[in-house]
């Protein structure tokens, strides 16, 4: 017959043993063993003590019950604590073992990119799209009418000398366009809602030239705005906006009279030199003038409207009623200024050492 004292002393002894075993249990398996040994449903030693409660006298049971419950709670708490500790240690050790070298470069993958001339071209297009322009594609192979005659450059015009032309074999007579100004004529002829026109025509052009600053093929964009009441002030405002959007507002813009057969008045557009930032001294890019030519432009020459009208067979663009401006430049020229490239031929050599610098 167990006595209350006997039970209490066994509980006391169990408590001491539990503490001793917990101190030496360092992993979750050992802790599970401790748990089973003390609290297991069938063979747990504390569980067994509860079974002995019924053997006590009724007056001792309450006392003994309280003592056993205290022991059980103590055991649960201690084992739980130890388990949490082990779990935390395990997680910490896993995390520290999973450490990676974050300084390693990202996984290797082929990296691609657009050609620098495409990057510039798209940027230019987007500036003009923002000002209400459509993008107009014209053919690279064209004829004398669209390339010269309609642009007020009849046969033997001295301005043709500046644009040494590639001609193609065979008939009908064809040439490679020497400038995207052909887009002026083609867009006016194709216009579905005359007389308003607002287009940008980017594309390849061809001239018989080949040296460090000239390639037999290069890219230009040509712009044309035609409507009632278009003024020289509109030309200057549009092109100043373009330059400021493309290069930044810190660059001054200068307009000066010039000559192109298909515009009158004709205007050359200069921007502050991005290389010397206006310091001039010793600058080879701007030849120490502080300015670089960036665009040719002008008010559409009445003769151009007349040529288009004659081709259509009626007066669609009456020079007395509508006016317009045109402008253009080399995309390479813009790219060379923007990226500081000095040899135009690099653009077409498909050399990865060049191409990879722009993506």
């Amino acid at each position, binding site marked *: 017959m167990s006595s209350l004292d006997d039970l209490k002393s066994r509980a006391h002894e169990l408590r001491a043993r539990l503490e001793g075993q917990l101190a030496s249990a360092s992993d979750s398996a050992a802790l599970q063993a401790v748990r089973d040994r003390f609290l297991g449903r069938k063979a747990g030693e504390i569980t067994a003590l509860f079974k002995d409660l019924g053997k006590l006298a009724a007056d001792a049971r309450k006392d003994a019950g309280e003592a056993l419950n205290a022991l059980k709670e103590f055991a649960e708490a201690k084992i739980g604590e130890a388990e949490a500790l082990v779990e935390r240690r395990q997680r910490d050790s896993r995390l520290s073992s999973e450490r990676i070298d974050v300084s390693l470069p990202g996984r290797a993958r*082929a990296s*691609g990119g657009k050609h620098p001339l495409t990057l510039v071209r798209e940027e230019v297009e987007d500036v003009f799209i923002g000002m209400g322009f459509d993008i107009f594609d014209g053919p690279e192979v064209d004829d004398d009418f669209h390339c010269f005659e309609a642009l007020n450059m009849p046969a033997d015009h001295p301005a043709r000398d500046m644009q040494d032309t590639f001609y193609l074999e065979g008939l009908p007579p064809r040439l490679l366009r020497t400038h995207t100004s052909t887009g002026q004529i083609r867009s006016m002829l194709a216009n579905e809602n005359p007389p308003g026109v607002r287009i940008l025509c980017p594309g390849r052009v061809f001239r018989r030239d080949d040296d460090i600053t000239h390639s037999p093929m290069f890219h230009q964009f040509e712009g044309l705005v035609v409507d009632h009441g278009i003024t020289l002030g509109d030309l200057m405002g549009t092109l100043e906006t373009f330059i400021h959007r493309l290069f930044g507002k810190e660059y001054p813009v200068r307009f000066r009279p010039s000559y192109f057969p298909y515009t009158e008045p004709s205007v050359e557009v200069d921007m502050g030199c991005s290389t010397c930032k206006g310091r001039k001294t010793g600058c080879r890019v701007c030849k120490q003038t502080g300015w670089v030519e960036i665009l040719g432009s002008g008010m559409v020459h009445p003769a151009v409207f007349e040529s288009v009208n004659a081709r259509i067979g009626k007066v669609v663009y009456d020079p007395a009623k509508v006016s317009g401006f045109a402008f253009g430049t080399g995309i390479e020229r813009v790219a060379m200024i923007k990226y500081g490239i000095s040899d135009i031929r690099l653009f077409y050599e498909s050399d990865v050492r060049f191409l990879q610098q722009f993506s």
Partner: protein
Amino acid sequence: MKIPVSWVKDFVPLEVEPQKLADDLTSIGLACDGIEFFGKEAVLDLDITTNRVDAMNMYGVAREAATFYGLPLMPLSTDFPEAGAPGSEVLRIEIEAPELCPVFSGRVFDVRVGPSPSWLKDRLELAGQRSISNIVDLSNYVMLEMGQPTHAFDLAKLRGGVLKARMASAGEVVKTLDDVDRTLTAAMGVVADAEGALAIAGVMGGTSSEISEATRTVALEAAYWNPLMIRRGSKALGMHTDASHRFERGADPSAGPISLARFASLAARGGMGTARPVLVQARGAQIVPRNLTLNLGSIDARLGASVPSEYSKTTLVRLGFEVKEPDPGAAAHLGSARTWEVVVPTWRGDCAREVDLIEEVARHYGLMKIARTVPASRRAAGLTSAQTTERRLKALLSGLGYREVLQLNFVSSAKCDPSSGSVVRIANPLSVEQDALRTSLVMPGLLEALERNQRHGARDIQFFELGRTFAPSAEGPVETPRLALLISGATPRGWAGKPRTLDFFDLKRTIEDILRRHSSGALTLTRDGVPPFLHPGRSAVIRIDGAAIGYLGELHPDTIAAFSLRDRPVVAEVWFDALTSRKTPAFEAFSRYPEVVRDLSILAPSTASAIEILALARDKAGDIAREVALIDRFEGAGVPAGQISLTLSFLFQDDARTLSSEEVERAIDAVRASFSALGYVARGLA
């Protein structure tokens, strides 16, 4: 053109610094490219546009400066003493070709040929001209000063005492001052004496009548030549001279007698010679000054500015235009626009329309004074669908690791792939290496680009280009936009894995990626009609809904050898127009019932076509099979020779219910049975 500032100051009392003068001239259209200083002398380098032949001389620049600064323009001093018998007794002038030469003037001088005085020599040198002898130098001086070329003939060498302006006879030969025999055509003009041609009209004099130290009397000639005829002649002869440069752009038809007088005045001053009385002159055609009507409202309307009419008038008058205002009463009449009648000076042949007068006003008024505006747009704008496709393709391919290249359109016709059709040839190519327009972006373009890169050690290449190819047709060359792709070498080296050789299926995957985004049709690859520069067993024609839209393949070993390439490059070309047919996808509701995945491995002959096996599996698995994919392909150890092991993965799912395992097994059994019927060994469910 080199413009010594001191020379300009002979005619206009300038006080500004040279840099300021340069900036101001630039602002009115005479662009200054630089200033050079020689002691106290400043020389401007002006880039005069081709239309402004009137400004290609000191006096023309002085006129512009005087107008801009509001300073007086001094007249050229043309007073000179005359001595001796009338020149007309020893010199006659005849125009036989009035179209070539509307006016021809001459004067006889008794001269002392010798070295030039220093003032003459120095000025010519500042203007970039070498001194030859006093008479030749003075002729050059007058040209630089006022723009009119003159030419001195040794009178003693003139046969018949006559200078004729006529067309050359075909085959006529003139030995020009540069000691070259020039054979002329009937379309070229000459100055001739009674017996033959002496000089090429408007271009260069000849040696037979050249003045020398022994020359005592000269016939100095100043003519106006038809610009077009001079231009055609000098171009045909390949000659470009100071004289032809001016005549072909249209010199001043009235300037001849003035230039002779100026020469006489300077010759007398320098003790170089004395003019004989009488200007000898012939006229082929009357020179009528041009009259233009200027609507005053047009100036402001064209410029978007408010230019005071008094300013416009003063500017035009200073530039030499005569401005006639109609009777003020008539101008004030209700409804009538205010107009001026403007007489254009003979030296401004470039001013032919009202708008040319507006430009004169605008450039002096100052472009920078005009308010800059952006015109209102009343229309929607943006990219066309083809342009959008182009941008998206470029972005996609860049993201997939391809670098965009842009190549010249020119190729060597010898290197074009003959199977891609006839070539468009350049009539005047720069070289035989660039004698045709490309018929393919790949052949030879991208292959040569790859070779250049491999030569400097770049082996792992992924390129694309969007560009046009050209083919002849009865209506002229046809341009076809294409997309070209090239891959070569391996995936990049890195710490995280071994590089893998790029092959056919890498590029096929790119083609699939492109077509999924840019086409709505079904892709198939067929082996017929593949270009011969590709490996016959590793290439295919790309088809969408059966129609060929390009090709894809590894290069033929012979092509690799011919282009000195390394590795096994794979190329493709796709016709761009095939990439613009994508329809907007319509959303389809997806099933919310569970998916069942089953894998099945089979052994098949290695010649079996993957697409046929997949089609059979899909067909036999029935409607409940939502996807069938090939997830493994293996040959070698463990697989009998001549066979391949394929693993198919089936995804079963129904839109309306949960599938039972029995019906999935039935479907798989049906597939297995159909493979067994073909003699394939089903290796069971993986």
